[in-house]
């Protein structure tokens, strides 16, 4: 019986190792092959090169014309710039609104609380495409020109939910005795909020903001429908590239994006998980 138990345990551990391998080996592969010099068959190793990175970053390279698809890095730079601008705006708006609604639902009792909770979870359950087309119909009917403005508004509708959830988790885990102490010692409500509640809440707010930023940077589906013809974001740019055929530059872009997301998301998740 003992042998069976340890055998079962061993296979469970092996299975879990495979589980993580399944998640991370593809990511490791692309990181390795982004340094492959083979311009045609990207998964056959022919030598180490940093040319693709140099090409993407706009340096002079010896890469031949037909191995490329970005005519100039200007398009790419523009897409990155758009994405960053959108992410910065949406993060600001969504963090303020998401935090406000989290505080309202946790610290106040009022009619319609459950309705608000449901509305907060709706964008996370709904398929992106539904929200995307609903926004498209709405903006076109309202006579709004599609562009940066519509992307920012559209992304905020679901980013508020993400901020809300992270800040709520923080509020739920907070120690209220400190607030009572502060009130007992004669601090008024505003002072208590500023000096006691807000500092405790801050990691949650920053964590939520970072996650909102990264989700905004990566959003494809909703942005795709409400971007109009003039504005391209980074994920849209890559989506368009993929539909035209795959060339090695995309590896380098992908690895840079992964690195960026990993760093920002790690920070956000760290701030979210740190309790008390």
């Amino acid at each position, binding site marked *: 019986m003992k042998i069976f138990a340890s055998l079962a345990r061993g296979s469970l551990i092996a299975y879990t190792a495979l589980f993580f391998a399944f*998640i991370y080996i593809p990511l490791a592969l692309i990181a390795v092959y982004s340094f492959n010099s083979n311009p045609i068959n990207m998964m056959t190793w022919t030598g180490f090169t940093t040319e693709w990175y140099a090409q993407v970053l706009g340096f002079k390279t010896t890469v031949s014309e037909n191995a490329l698809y970005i005519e100039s890095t200007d398009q790419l730079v523009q897409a990155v710039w758009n994405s960053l601008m959108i992410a910065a705006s949406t993060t600001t708006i969504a963090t303020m609104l998401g935090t406000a609604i989290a*505080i309202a639902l946790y610290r106040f009792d009022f009619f319609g609380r459950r309705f608000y909770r449901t509305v907060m979870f709706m964008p996370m359950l709904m398929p992106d495409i539904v929200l995307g*087309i609903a926004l498209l119909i709405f903006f076109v009917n309202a006579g709004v020109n599609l562009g940066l403005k519509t992307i920012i508004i559209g992304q905020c509708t679901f980013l508020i939910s993400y901020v809300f959830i992270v800040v709520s988790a923080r509020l739920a885990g907070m120690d209220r005795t400190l607030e009572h102490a502060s009130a007992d010692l004669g601090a008024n409500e505003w002072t208590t909020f500023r000096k006691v509640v807000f500092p405790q809440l801050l990691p949650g707010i920053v964590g939520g903001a970072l996650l909102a930023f990264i989700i905004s940077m990566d959003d494809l589906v909703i942005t795709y429908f409400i971007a109009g013809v003039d504005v391209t974001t980074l994920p849209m740019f890559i989506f368009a590239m*993929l539909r035209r055929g795959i060339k090695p530059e995309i590896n380098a872009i992908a690895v840079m994006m992964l690195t960026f997301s990993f760093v920002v998301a790690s920070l956000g998740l760290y701030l979210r998980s740190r309790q008390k």
Partner: protein
Amino acid sequence: MSSIAFRRRAQLGLLLGPVSLFLAVFFLGPLAIMIVTSFLAPGLYGGVEWTWYPHNYGRILGFADPMFEDFDPVYIAIFLRSLKIAALTVVATLLVCYPAAFCISRLSERWKNFCLFLITLPFFTSLIVRLFIWVLILRQTGLVNSVLLNTGVVARPLELIYTDGAIVLGMVYVFIPFMFMPVYASVEKLDWTLVRASLDLGAGPIRTFLRIILPLTAPGIAGGAVIVFIPALGNFVVPAILGGAKVMMLGNLIEQQFLAARNWPFGSALAMMVMSVMLVLLCVYVIVSGRRGIDAATGR
């Protein structure tokens, strides 16, 4: 009314006012307009005509519609196929996540948190990049085929990409965190004394699993199934990249109606189908697993 109560109300208004306005106009408003649009007639050159036109829904089911083709079950076929792929995705994701959840739940606190972090992290990396990697692995000249060819296992490259299997694989890869979190939440809460009691009283491991472990973790499984099934059903990025032009799913059909065919009412009706499947699933879920339902479904 006391001044404190008044101040509380004012504070609440200040907190909720702007966000209520924003969500009413830019979230609930658009959804309402989409519902209305799904009952309107498509204009000849794109656009919408403001007349009552329920045939959009009939057309999905295959009935002839006054403006377009004859009886044609092509859309219902796409709908059924999407349901099939989404169901396969749920089953595969569950098989991938369930055993791992047991293993991770028995680790020490530090390792547990680290593992959860590793599983959540990919969710925040670019969807398109994660799918692109699978194109490199699966395509004709991709990694799997070049390994198989070089080792002589196969003589000609296998057709791995642009198949239903490739789509399911891509979906599983993308949706792992969605399934893992709710499943893990219920596995972690599992009372192992019950399992031990069952084994002590003479039930075999299989019986213990079916009678004790499975029912106790069922809420997590149901929650994970719902939040994987819904986005899988409406997904259009995965089929667009890993399905090529060969495999059409509901998401692609909706995209096509909006960006190529410019039949917005029909596209809206299709989106309503996705929404109604979602509502049915959520209702079933809430009835089956009670009020804790929604909280578990969102991983909290």
